[in-house]
């Protein structure tokens, strides 16, 4: 127990300390450090994010934009573009395994991803058109809401099977998957399909607007709103992100808002961190890690809010 608590404190301190190095040299004084120092600091920070994201059961994208946007000298336009790519890369990398294991349903993801893609494009266009300070304030509020959502849904989750609605029956949104944890197949079906489609459209807008991965919203929408078993909801959310973020990523790319010097170290950092995170997961309590994530999100959300209000 003591080891777990110490590990939790260590993760919080490390994640908080890395961007503080960057904070020492804000945008106007960025030249105080050589150019190559920034990708290295970014790599180290995203490496820690990858660990915390896996242990906390969230995607790295939701941590990336508020932390890097708040504490690094890069403009929020480029940070949001990188955040989208980061979430997209993680979802794409996990996609084949999730599909093969049956822990993601292609049929369930397809209609939701279509609604999310349209929303993602809309969000990306709005985000790139709005003044930075407006986006920063909205991002701060959104991140604080995400932290609140994570706090209030930390012990919730429903695996109660509901009768399929008309839309779900028409689209064949039902089936079964093998859950290795229980050792047998789990039947699933979907209800409130139209609400789910509307939710994914809205989540797509938020994702495209702020460059956030959307697992924090997709999973509750699938599980609590549509009645999808939690494990299938997590897997299908990842698959949906791999499609939804593609649409918004193209918008950012076409607008010239993707900087390789930010994108590549971030993707590599999070991916390597995630591998280490899988090992750390065995030594640390998931609830401790989730609390670390909530604390970091609150700090980053407040900073984004303050930055937007005082700029």
């Amino acid at each position, binding site marked *: 127990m003591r080891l777990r608590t110490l590990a939790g404190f260590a993760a919080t301190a490390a994640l908080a300390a890395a961007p503080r190095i960057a904070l020492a040299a804000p945008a*106007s004084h*960025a*030249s105080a*450090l050589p*150019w*190559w120092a*920034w990708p290295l600091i970014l790599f180290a920070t995203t490496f820690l994010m990858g660990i915390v994201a896996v242990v906390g059961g969230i995607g790295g994208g939701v941590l990336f934009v508020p932390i890097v946007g708040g504490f690094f*000298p*890069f*403009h929020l*336009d*480029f940070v949001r573009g990188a955040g989208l*790519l980061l979430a*997209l*890369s993680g979802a*794409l*990398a996990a*996609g*084949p*395994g999730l*599909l*093969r294991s*049956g822990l993601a349903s*292609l*049929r369930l993801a*397809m209609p939701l991803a*279509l609604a999310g*893609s*349209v929303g993602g494009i809309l969000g990306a*266009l709005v985000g*790139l058109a709005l003044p*930075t300070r407006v986006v920063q304030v909205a991002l701060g509020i959104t991140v604080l809401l995400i932290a609140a959502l994570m706090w209030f849904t930390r012990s919730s989750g429903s695996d109660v099977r509901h009768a399929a609605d008309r839309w779900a029956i*028409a*689209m*064949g949104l*039902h*089936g*079964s*998957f*093998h859950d290795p944890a229980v050792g047998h*197949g789990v*039947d699933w079906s979907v209800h409130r399909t139209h609400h789910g489609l509307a939710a994914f459209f809205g989540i797509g807008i938020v994702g495209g607007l702020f460059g956030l991965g959307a697992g924090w919203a997709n999973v509750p929408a699938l599980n609590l709103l549509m009645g999808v078993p939690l494990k299938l909801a997590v897997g299908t959310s990842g698959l949906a992100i*791999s499609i939804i973020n*593609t*649409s*918004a*990523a*193209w*918008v950012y*790319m*076409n607008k*010239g*808002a*993707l900087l*390789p*010097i930010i*994108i*590549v170290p971030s*993707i*590599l950092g999070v991916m390597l961190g995630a591998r280490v995170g899988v090992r750390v997961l065995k030594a640390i309590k998931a609830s401790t890690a989730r609390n670390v994530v909530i604390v970091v999100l609150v700090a980053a959300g407040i900073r984004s809010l303050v930055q937007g209000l005082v700029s």
Partner: protein
Amino acid sequence: MPLSTPSRRNEQEVYARWLAWGVRLGFGALVATFFLYVTGLVPPGIAPERLPQLWGLPVDQYIAATGAPTGWSWVARLREGDLLNLVGVAILASASIACHLRVLPLFVASRERVFAAICVAQVVVLVAAAAGVF
């Protein structure tokens, strides 16, 4: 029809196989081109030393200051190391389009009109986003 029936297994398997190849190709290209960029083996259009004065600008001011490309004009400038990285990004962002195109005939063959239509609509949305329609 449960998920474990042959038809559903098949489309998931095919989608997963194509996605796995797209991801391998995309990540491979991303890492290789970034190596060429940061080592200077392929000279960048914008010197990395200039970046700390530029990356704090909003994207429209950054483009005005550097002449960085928008849309697909980067393809004509692939000799610039920084823009070469966009090849990997484009492959990753095209993977889902290729996967949808690959499973579309499977839905058509099994006469699943709703999913065939969703597939077509998804491809149209993603291609339009890629083409810069929006």
